[in-house]
């Protein structure tokens, strides 16, 4: 215990510790004001939506993306009549893919020939998941009141999964929904069940947006791309549907591509580990303290230098801010290395915010010490 005290004393210097505490207090004050004053609502929304993970995914875009060998998209954006859609689906199924996700909801019967054809094909399909959508959310009871299904699914008792995705920013994929006390697996959970033979019980999972190219096979080139379909996972739907666009950390993306990323996340070998809980906050405090120490050391050094051009330059707000920015970049780079190479996600948002307040908090501590202790 005595050794621990000595070590803690050696690491945590009183001034630096006080400056870190003040920086956290300033951060808390800012959060309180932002989230409780209506005028700052847009800022609060922006802060809520910020995650260093998004930044890391964006950084990953700089290196060339891999092409998925497992998941392909069969695009039917320009195909509108159900008879043709059924023919393409039949053609895809004949190539024996490992699983098919039909990302289209054929809600009501439209034309008798096309509907009959579609029904015949759907009945024959194996290893296939059809989509349905939860609709009309009841915000008070936090559930959906209606569902939109393909017209033939109930009669034929086909495998079905929901395709609801977050409209604001899709970071997570819901794997199981609850509605009226009943559990509804999502289309991704159903696909995983087909592929791995085990039901997926998780509620949701954060999507790994490591940039990946999913081959898009046009509906009229199925045979020439047969090798990419056999024994692979086929996502069947519109890859260029303009109304089906969603916001993701990689920018705007089509719904079917988001589903590809979600499925890849669940079935791929390397899972991202999120650093959370007590360990996360302990590390955040440690990193914040280190950054405050660095910034205070810089300030002390620059103020301790004899007056001259260099010392004046180092003391300017611009150069001090540049130093803080450099420190932030270093932390982001280290965080990115862990994210990219070790698949460990550590959200640096609080640490970076404390760094932004570090110079102010150091000044406040200096001011307080000067006017409290020295006068005595």
């Amino acid at each position, binding site marked *: 215990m005595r050794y621990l005290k000595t070590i803690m004393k050696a690491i945590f210097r009183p001034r630096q510790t006080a400056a870190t505490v003040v920086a956290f207090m300033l951060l808390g004050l800012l959060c309180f004001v932002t989230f409780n004053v209506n005028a700052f609502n847009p800022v609060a929304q922006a802060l809520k939506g910020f995650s260093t993970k998004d930044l890391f995914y964006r950084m990953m875009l700089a290196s060339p993306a891999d092409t998925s*060998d497992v998941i392909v998209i069969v695009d039917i954006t320009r195909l509108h009549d159900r008879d043709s859609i059924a023919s393409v689906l039949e053609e895809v199924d004949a190539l024996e893919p490992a699983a098919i996700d039909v990302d289209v909801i054929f809600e009501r019967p439209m034309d008798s020939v096309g509907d009959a054809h579609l029904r015949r094909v759907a009945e024959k399909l*194996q290893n296939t998941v059809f989509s349905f959508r939860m609709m009309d959310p009841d915000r008070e009871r936090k559930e959906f009141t209606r569902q939109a299904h393909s017209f033939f699914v109930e009669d034929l008792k086909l495998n079905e999964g929901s395709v609801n995705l977050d409209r604001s920013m899709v970071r997570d994929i819901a794997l199981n929904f609850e509605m009226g006390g009943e559990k509804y697996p999502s289309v991704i959970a159903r696909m995983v069940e087909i592929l*791995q*033979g085990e039901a997926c019980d998780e509620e949701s999972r954060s999507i790994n947006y490591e940039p990946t190219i999913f081959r898009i096979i046009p509906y009229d080139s199925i045979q020439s791309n047969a090798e990419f379909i056999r024994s692979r996972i086929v996502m069947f739907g519109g890859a260029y549907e303009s109304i089906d666009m969603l916001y993701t950390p990689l920018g705007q993306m089509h719904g079917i591509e988001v589903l590809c990323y979600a499925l890849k996340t669940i079935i791929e070998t390397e899972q991202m580990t999120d650093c959370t809980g007590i360990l996360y906050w302990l590390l955040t405090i440690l990193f914040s303290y280190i950054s405050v120490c660095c910034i205070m050391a810089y300030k002390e050094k620059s103020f301790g230098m004899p007056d001259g051009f260099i010392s004046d330059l180092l003391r300017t707000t611009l150069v001090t801010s540049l130093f803080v920015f450099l420190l932030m970049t270093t932390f982001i780079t280290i965080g990115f290395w862990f994210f990219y190479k070790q698949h460990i996600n550590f959200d640096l948002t609080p640490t970076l915010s404390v760094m932004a307040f570090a110079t102010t908090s150091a000044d406040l501590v200096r001011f307080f010490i000067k006017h409290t202790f020295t006068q005595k």
Partner: protein
Amino acid sequence: MRHINIRSSLLVMLFLLAASMTAQTPRKFLVKEVGEKPVILHDGKKKVHVASRDLLPINAMITIPKGGKLVVYDHTSLRELTIKEAGTNVLAKFLDGSSKESYTKVTFAGLIALLFSNDKQQDAIGTIYRGHDSNGNSIDEYTADIRTVLADSLANIPSEYTDILKEVLEDIECQCEVPSDTITNAKQL
């Protein structure tokens, strides 16, 4: 001019034929061991359980369950690759993150032989595998054993494995101390 065109066309056709033949023969890996939980090979719509001694093409899509394990041989680099990651992916991607263990070429020959010998010669192979016996004698002492094992196993070898074995034996002939008469016998399969 016409002659040149015909010759060029022939050359192009030959090149395309060679390229397509190369493209159509993906590298295959011999399965040494499957963990307790079944590993699934997605063969079209069918799901097949992978068993030891199966040949898996590098682009095969497989599902390894949580806590599952798959060990394959890479006969081109003479390595044993152990996959412990769970998930669904093509074998090539799984191999990227696998742990690799190199074997001497003699050991590899022994292991291949073990696979084909229906476990008849486990003692001899065990000696080769360990690299030395309990008295600390080196494997050179056991070349006779290797010869016996290979000769025995070659008689029972399934036809689908002969190509792999020939390739391996060619490697061995170049670089290790397996007696050349054994290699010659093997190549005459």
